[in-house]
């Protein structure tokens, strides 16, 4: 019976090729989108999983509460925290381990002592206990070897890269940052990409030296601390001891009240408040948003199916009648119709899988992740696809099947089932729902694009274009060569300006300090400090509003501040601040200039109070302003000079405007996704509409013919056929507006600099939906209105 049903289903689909095509097209695109969304979500949800007792692993993170109500968070902890917690929390904690991120020059010599590899790499200083918390797969050696400060453990990938074969790595030696040689004492299996801690080169924590080793007042995001709870200890029970702990160790007065939180391992990939070593955060809210979009896509495609199926039901009525008088039970007919739906959905799944495969590289590019569509690797994807088929088959197929199998055989055989059976009312509601979803997505897309454009065109207060940021190696030897290097750079034709600085005006790398103004107490906020030389203003095109630029000097210190800093200090007139002393970190220096505010972070955040000092700078970058016409050639020369000047190090460059664009990676992804899915959903909705109008036109052929005989013109007939559709889409717009408004206003709240929501995206969305409707529907209804009257009337 099933086989026969399948065969009949196939012939039926073939007979109504047009509608089948529309259904399959809509469903397969919808399903492909759903599968893509699913595999992306699956990948994101797989982060930091698979460790033994993973639910007992936590990370210690830091927070500060300021008097002005601001709160700051950091993924890092003060360096003395780990040993202190190991001692004070021993009743609750099984193991705690510090891990320190660093980067530096790795050099490896071959057997003959000749330099074989020179590269800058990320390294981690880890305590051996770290491996008691995370059970990595050890290929050779063991973690206790890291108790020895001259050992190093490598991942399989690194070991292979450095020594040809990881099996040969044990006992070999590498040099880190020109200071110390380490002997390879172990190799671990590569850590999967979906981990927030990407261990590749692990140095012993004992080899890590820092002047803040005992300083509770300094927190760097490079210093993290993980612990594993003892079994059967509830994390809540640590809150009491934590209060005492904070009271015991934070004895100095600081502008912000220190606090710590215990973040579960499973939260690390999703919590945007804290960062992580991999730099990849995926807020769960965004994943849910994607899931909702996928769900809506599926609903839209299913609505197409329901509408076309119920519209077609009339033409199937005869068959239903005949089958019933031949002894077919309603349930058997139900099964038959569901088989047909299942066939369509299954074909759509196959085509959808192909579309997924085609779209996957684009998706990987967009998200910069290695998401995979291998059902063998991840059988859950197969399970999802099967569930999707069942879900869509039932969602799309059940209602039409109920309607069709319920036809009265006496009426059905006499062809007296009217066109309205199968709920014309319901069909209208479904179209309204479908278009409400579509219009909401169109409005969302328009607003996101508008906001993105606004962000792009926001005046930053400085000019980031054609500025290359070249890394400067920073030790006592190399700094001596800075002056010569700068002179050489300035002589290159095509270089318009050079400034050595700690960071660019806008940077992810920020440094907060407390200070006092004009001999007063420490202020209750932190200032973002940047070091720079006298060329900083000119190179980045920053504007002075009062005072003067920094003077080139090795002995005197001077400060420039921005307007926000003055505003925070309640100083109205910038000239008032000139000459006033700022003391910070035991050093006093005068303010010599006030700079016009510039956006120093992403536009999600407000402008910080900023202080730019000139003395004893640690310069990390050479900012080189280039003539944009000779960019590439100039950079080659820069690289050559750099390599001659710092032969012991490795050259690295980046462009400031690229880095600034990177702040908005998340929004860019959202924008692209919305654009793609909006186009997909528009497409699905409108092919559905086309199918429906085709049907209505066929259905009303006779009516159209009679009206024509009675003297209706083609235009009037087209108007008559179009009317209800335009009304439906109009109502859908009215439904969509408040929903879209809620959604976009919520989204825009996340930006400190944002557009005002205007009526235009709404009007535009309405115009787009109405015009496309009009065009879609008119094409078909014009054809119907022009059809030959005689053919229509002589039938029956």
């Amino acid at each position, binding site marked *: 019976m099933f086989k026969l049903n399948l065969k009949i289903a196939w012939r039926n689909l073939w007979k109504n090729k047009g509608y089948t095509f529309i259904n399959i097209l809509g469903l397969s695109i919808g399903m492909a989108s759903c599968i893509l969304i699913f595999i992306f979500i699956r990948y994101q949800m797989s982060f930091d999983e698979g460790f033994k007792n993973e639910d007992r692993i936590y990370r210690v993170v830091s927070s500060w509460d300021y008097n002005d109500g601001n709160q700051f968070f950091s993924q890092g902890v003060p360096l003395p925290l780990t040993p202190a917690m190991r001692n004070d929390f021993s009743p609750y904690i099984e193991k705690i381990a510090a891990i320190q991120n660093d980067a530096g020059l790795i050099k490896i010599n071959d057997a003959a002592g000749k330099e074989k590899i020179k590269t800058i790499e990320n390294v981690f200083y880890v305590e051996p206990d770290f491996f008691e918390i995370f059970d990595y797969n050890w290929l050779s050696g063991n973690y206790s070897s890291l108790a020895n400060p001259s050992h190093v453990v490598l991942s399989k990938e690194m070991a292979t890269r450095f020594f040809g074969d990881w099996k040969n790595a044990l006992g070999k030696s590498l040099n880190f940052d020109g200071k110390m040689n380490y002997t390879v004492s172990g190799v671990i299996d590569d850590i999967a990409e979906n981990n927030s801690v990407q261990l590749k080169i692990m140095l012993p924590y004992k080899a890590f030296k820092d002047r803040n080793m005992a300083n509770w007042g300094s927190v760097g995001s490079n210093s993290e601390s993980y612990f594993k709870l003892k079994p059967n200890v509830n994390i809540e029970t640590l809150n009491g001891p934590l209060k005492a702990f904070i009271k015991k160790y934070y004895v100095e007065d600081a502008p912000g009240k220190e606090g710590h939180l215990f973040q579960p391992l499973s939260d690390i990939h999703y919590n945007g408040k804290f960062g992580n070593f991999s730099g990849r955060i995926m807020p769960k809210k965004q994943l849910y948003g994607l899931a909702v979009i996928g769900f809506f896509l599926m609903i839209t495609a299913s609505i197409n199916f329901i509408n076309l199926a119920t519209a077609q039901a009339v033409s199937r009525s005869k068959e239903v009648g*005949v089958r019933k008088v031949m002894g077919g039970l309603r349930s058997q007919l139900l099964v038959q119709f569901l088989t047909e739906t299942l066939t369509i959905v299954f074909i759509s799944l196959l085509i959808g899988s192909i579309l997924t495969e085609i779209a996957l590289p684009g998706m990987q590019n967009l998200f910069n992740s290695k998401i995979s569509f291998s059902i063998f690797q991840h059988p859950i994807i197969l399970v999802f696809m099967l569930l999707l088929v069942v879900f869509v088959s039932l969602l799309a197929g059940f209602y039409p099947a109920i309607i069709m199998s319920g036809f009265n055989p006496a009426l059905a055989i006499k062809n007296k089932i009217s066109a309205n059976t199968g709920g014309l009312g319901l069909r209208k509601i479904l179209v309204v729902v479908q278009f409400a979803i579509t219009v909401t997505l169109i409005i969302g897309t328009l607003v996101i694009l508008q906001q993105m454009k606004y962000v792009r065109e926001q005046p930053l207060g400085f000019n980031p274009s054609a500025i290359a940021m070249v890394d400067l190696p920073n030790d006592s030897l190399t700094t001596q060569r800075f002056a010569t290097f700068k002179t050489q750079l300035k002589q290159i034709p095509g270089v318009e300006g050079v400034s050595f600085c700690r960071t660019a005006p806008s940077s992810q790398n920020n440094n907060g300090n407390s200070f006092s103004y004009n001999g007063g107490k420490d202020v209750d906020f932190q200032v973002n400090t940047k070091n720079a030389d006298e060329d900083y203003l000119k190179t980045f095109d920053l504007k002075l509003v009062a005072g003067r630029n920094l003077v080139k000097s090795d002995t005197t210190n001077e400060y420039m501040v921005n307007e926000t800093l003055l505003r925070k200090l309640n100083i109205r007139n910038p000239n008032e601040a000139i000459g006033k002393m700022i003391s910070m970190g035991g050093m006093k220096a005068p303010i010599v200039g006030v700079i016009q505010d510039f956006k120093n972070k992403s536009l999600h955040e407000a402008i910080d109070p900023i202080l730019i000092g000139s003395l004893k700078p640690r310069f990390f970058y050479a900012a080189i302003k280039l003539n944009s016409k000779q960019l590439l050639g100039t950079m080659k020369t820069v690289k050559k000079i750099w390599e001659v000047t710092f032969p012991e190090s490795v050259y690295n460059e980046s462009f400031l405007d690229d880095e600034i664009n990177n702040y908005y990676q998340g929004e860019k992804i959202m924008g692209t996704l919305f654009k793609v899915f909006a186009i997909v959903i528009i497409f699905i909705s409108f092919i559905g509409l086309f199918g429906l109008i085709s049907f209505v036109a066929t259905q009303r052929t006779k009516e159209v013919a009679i009206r024509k005989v009675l003297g209706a013109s083609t235009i009037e007939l087209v108007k008559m056929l179009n009317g209800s559709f335009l009304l439906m889409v109009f109502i859908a717009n009215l439904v969509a507006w408040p929903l879209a408004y809620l959604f976009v206003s919520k989204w825009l709240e996340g930006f400190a600099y944002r557009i005002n929501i205007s009526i235009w995206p709404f009007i535009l969305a309405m115009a787009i939906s109405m015009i496309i409707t009009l065009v879609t529907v008119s094409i078909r209804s014009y054809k119907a209105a022009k059809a030959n009257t005689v053919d229509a009337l002589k039938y029956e």
Partner: protein
Amino acid sequence: MVGRQIVLRFKRPNLQPSAFLPSTLKKMIELKNIEKYYANKGIKHYVLRHVTTTIKQGEFVSIMGPSGAGKSTLLNILGMLEEPTYGTYEFFGEDVTTLNERKRIELYRNHIGFVFQAYHLIDEMTVYENIEAPLLYKKVGSSERASRIANLLDRFNIVAKKDLFPNQLSGGQQQLVGIARALAAQPSVILADEPTGNLQSTQAEEIMQLFKKLNQEDGITIIQVTHSEKNAEYGNRILHIADGVVKEDVLVR
């Protein structure tokens, strides 16, 4: 086309093929005081009034009357496609006036075959599959199914057409398939609503001959609705209906 020989090769041993002695036959259908009306804004529109009649096994009854007389409604009630407003309907002594779906389907599967004016073959199925469909619903085993269909195809001389689709056949051929389909389940009665209404006269004649043979040689009860006096002559009893009332009930010959 013309002059096709229709040979009937099998007989039903349990039934006596003697349409000439209706009084000795078992009662099949008994209608008592059947009424059917549609109420519209409080006004009743009668379609059938006080129809009382008995049809015995082996009869070939033609229902005749002008358009709108209630012929089709009566046939629908006989086929349990519609329920009467009043009155009782007994089928083989069992009251079937109101039946649940399962019981009604059970009767369709075992006792009643339908033949339609517009043939109503399922367009997506071949001749063979159309004939097979009722057997599938009846859950007849596959070898039995194959032999019965082969038999029918053979009898109606449509073996060569078994893989064609309905739209590839002429009207007469389609109706032949329609009858074969109705016979496949070996029903006790065939209800035919203007079976020749869409056919040319030669084809119509053939179909009527076939009905007559089925009735006389296989003892299958046939009830047909027809407009044509000539077609009615093939049967052995005519019910004349006008305005919902049985005006005349005559035996032919």
